[in-house]
């Protein structure tokens, strides 16, 4: 076995993909090739070294990890409270919105409520016939500052 082939098999062995029948051939090469043996040692050490590194971090944080359920439970409660609050807001948000709308309507409704009631026949109005035998449309236009009113008269009754 040459070194190039051996290097491929070293990685395959570490990945758990080297067929058992090829392990002996690789071991034979490693016994006589210090360079490949060094490669094999380093590749094989990667996993245990990574586990060792993470083991150190786990030891450092062991007390905090012991209290993980307490942390999680607190987080769940907090999240539940936030959801409850936002759900409450969603349920009742229409009240201030409706109040604001009502106040706006009161504040900005066009003035001039002191006008007396009128009937189109008592004012200068333009009366137009529509294509119907029973309906008449009356346009009441009292000036530029006032809204135009449309009367629809059916069967001579408004």
């Amino acid at each position, binding site marked *: 076995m040459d070194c190039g082939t051996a290097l491929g098999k070293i*990685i395959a062995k*570490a*990945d758990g*993909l080297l067929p058992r029948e090829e392990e002996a051939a690789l071991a034979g090469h490693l016994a006589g090739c*210090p*360079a*490949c*043996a*060094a*490669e094999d*040692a*380093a*590749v094989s*050490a*990667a*996993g*245990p*070294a*990574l*586990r*060792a*590194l*993470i*083991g*150190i*971090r*786990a*030891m*450092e*944080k062991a007390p*905090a*990890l012991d209290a*993980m*359920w307490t*942390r*999680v*439970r607190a*987080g*769940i409660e907090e*999240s539940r409270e936030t959801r409850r609050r936002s759900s409450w807001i969603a349920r009742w948000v229409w009240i201030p919105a409706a109040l604001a709308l009502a106040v706006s309507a009161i504040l900005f409704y066009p003035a001039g409520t002191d006008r007396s009631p009128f009937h189109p026949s008592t004012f200068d109005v333009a009366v137009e016939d529509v294509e119907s035998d029973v309906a008449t449309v009356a346009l009441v236009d009292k000036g530029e500052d006032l809204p135009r009113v449309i009367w629809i008269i059916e069967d001579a009754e408004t």
Partner: protein
Amino acid sequence: MNERERGGVPDDALIRTTLAGDDGAFGELVERYKGRAFAVAVGIVGDGDDALDVVQDSFIKAYYKLKEFRFGSNFYTWFYRLLVNQAIDRWRKSARSAEVPFDESWLTEDASPPDGFAYPRTPEDLARDRELGDALQRAVDALPEYHRAVIVLREVDGMTYDEIAEVLGCSVGTVMSRLHYARGKLKESLKSHREG
């Protein structure tokens, strides 16, 4: 290996109990998986405090998503998907992700003859060689996130290729190629420390 295989109360039963309103059952799941979850999280984010936050957030997320869990599938595979995504997000947002440049030259160093040097195999071994621990951490940090996730799930958690592929939502071939690459990086880190 999950708890069902170890003879404890099956995960599915704990999930059903949680969904029925008993949070204590979810606490059992937390106790069951917190150690493994922390190992995976710290392997990806590098920092212990960040990893604790990731584990906490992942369990909270899992709690609220529990009704989406498909009974018959593995809880830990489902949970690890949340955990790994949470950890990768955390890593990307952390300052550490910008600190470590990617160094292709690590893959091209020559081998040298073996000597009496013994690579660390336990936390105690590694704790005695702080420089190696730092070098190894830098090598892990320099891996692209998904490569890091693959080698952690494989080497630390012992997941199969199929399980890793399911967790990461990729093919087994992709898992194998990422694992191969990541292992090569860690190997070079170990060798260069020994030779340096």
